[in-house]
């Protein structure tokens, strides 16, 4: 920023009118920056406002929403959506328990496997490491598709209504392994080498010497995995039918859908229990969205620093 204009003005003649160039550069820049700030602000709002809308609506009374529709302002403050959501909390609590456990167990294992595999595959002295890498990479180019995977998991691995269906499918990703590999590659090989000379075995070297140097990597992979587990509804859709074993996002989807179905019934004139129709449906939807998404968004400001850092690691392709 500071470097541009003075330097341009200082430019040795050499047939170029440095001053004029400097002015052009300056104007150019001012226009670019003004447009840039405007654009970026607009897009930033576009990203945030939907969240504001959901949050605000969840604290609005259903009656006010019926009158004014969705707005960005609380017309009538009310907690009825939350009160209703927690009147029969059993299903929310189940879903919370399942998702929290799956996230905790799953992302721990995911980080461990990705870093371990990445470490081995970047070891210069590991024979055939390229063949092993290809063995993993090939799965990103070709796969069996949904049907064989589904049959395998449902029929042979007993995924149906089993908690492993919420944990196993997201436990390993070749991309995370590649990020780990290229990060660990930047750690000097001499650390491993000298420890080997001292007689330490590879597991110990990895656990005692390498892992402690991988904190940003661990934070990033942990976040990626935690996000994948927290937001997972797909595996519940495929394998789970028992209410007490469903994940949080699937529960949210099911609830939104059943409210919608109820509305459709009413709109075609079907007789529906009046107590159901009078429920605060719209605000309940938004309240449930806040309840199920809240933790991951609240976590966001704390982990954002690592997240950006970690992405940068991933971008530096080895």
């Amino acid at each position, binding site marked *: 920023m500071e*470097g541009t204009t003075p*330097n*341009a003005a200082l*430019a040795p003649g050499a047939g*170029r009118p*440095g001053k004029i160039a400097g002015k*052009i*550069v300056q104007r*150019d*820049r001012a226009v*670019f*920056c003004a447009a840039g700030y405007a*654009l*970026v602000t607009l897009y930033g709002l576009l*990203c945030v406002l*939907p*969240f504001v*809308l959901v949050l605000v609506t969840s604290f609005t009374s259903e009656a006010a929403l019926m009158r*004014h*529709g*969705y707005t960005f302002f609380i017309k009538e403050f009310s907690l009825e959506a939350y009160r209703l959501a927690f009147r029969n909390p059993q299903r929310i609590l189940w879903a919370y328990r399942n998702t929290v456990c799956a996230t905790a167990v799953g992302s721990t294992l995911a980080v461990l*496997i990705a870093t371990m*595999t990445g470490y*081995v595959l970047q070891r210069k002295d*590991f024979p055939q490491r390229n063949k092993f890498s290809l*063995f993993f990479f090939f*799965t*990103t180019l*070709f796969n*069996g*598709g*949904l*049907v*064989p995977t589904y*049959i*395998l998991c449902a*029929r042979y691995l007993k995924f149906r209504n089993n908690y492993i269906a919420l944990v196993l499918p997201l436990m*390993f990703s*070749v991309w995370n*392994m590649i990020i780990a590999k290229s990060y660990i590659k930047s750690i000097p090989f001499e650390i491993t080498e000298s420890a080997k000379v001292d007689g330490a*075995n*590879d*597991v110990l070297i990895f656990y005692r010497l390498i892992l402690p140097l991988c904190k940003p990597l661990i934070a990033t992979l942990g976040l990626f995995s935690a*996000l994948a587990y927290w937001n*997972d*509804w*797909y595996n519940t859709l495929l394998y789970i039918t028992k209410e007490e074993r469903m994940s949080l*996002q699937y529960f*949210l989807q099911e609830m*939104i859908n059943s409210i919608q179905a109820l509305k459709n019934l009413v709109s075609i004139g079907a007789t529906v229990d009046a107590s159901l129709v009078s429920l605060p449906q*719209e605000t309940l939807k938004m309240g449930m*969205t806040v309840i*199920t*998404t809240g933790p*991951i*968004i609240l976590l*966001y400001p704390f982990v954002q620093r690592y997240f950006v850092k970690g992405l940068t690691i991933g*971008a*530096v*392709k080895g």
Partner: protein
Amino acid sequence: MDGLSAGAPRRARSPFAKTAWNNRYLLLMLLPAILYVVVFSYLPMAGIVVAFKNFNYQKGIFGSDWVGLKNFRFLLMSNKLWFLTRNTLLYNLAFISVGMALEVGFAIVINELASKRFKRLFQSFMFLPYFISWVVVAAILQAVFSYEYGLLNGLLSSVGAGRVNLYADAGPWPYLLVAFRAWKTVGYGTVVYLATITGIDPELHEAASIDGASLIQRIRRITLPCLAPTMAIMFLLALGQVFRGDFGLFYQLIGNNALLLPKADILDLFIYRALSSTSDLGMASAAGLYQSVLCFATIMAVNALIKKLQPDYSLF
């Protein structure tokens, strides 16, 4: 190695066994990932044979009877294959190009902005949509587009315009889907490109501006060429999945809405529907194989082409 050989067994005689034994700890650490990939990637590849079988749940994949190409004939007879393939391909091409243009654009603009605070704030705003699931996006969509109470219809009727029912009108959905997909993923891509831009040697820019290059010229001649390798990799990786739709996006936003499907049906939705009505399982597996082969052929062909034109940019 000497410290370890104390326990080496006598049978480790052949060179292979010896190498394996010497690396036993590394192999042990590799084992979980290998097992995982064998079970969840390579076994399903073998399971592809189900596309040529009349699958019977009791008999299992390998016990079921062979039916040759019958499943593929059904798939062709459904007359939807071309339509679905075209939709999937066009949607993905739109996602890739719009996404990349926005990501690179935002990365360049953000990089030029002076205020560090503003930069950081904006980056965290952009990332917010990346943190939520498509389920939540669908809920937000209802808040904005719902016919009776939605934000958009509220605004429209307050300025005297008529209400629109987007859930019954397929027309705008191709644009909406591209927009929402970009909204959710652009934050991530921008950070990736921004990292690459930050890695560009500042001397290049200084030298250019000393020579009187304008900002636009510098972006065109320095920043973009420096971004090209990253763009090529991202593009290639995306192209490898170009016949595989974003199931979450389409399932949550379109789902089974028969009014929208004519404009927004993709292979993945079709396969899922066929799978969930178990009678069409054979057809679903045939479509899945078709999709996998298309993806594989595309990535191999494009990679070979790029290798010929620009060897540095090829993926492998």
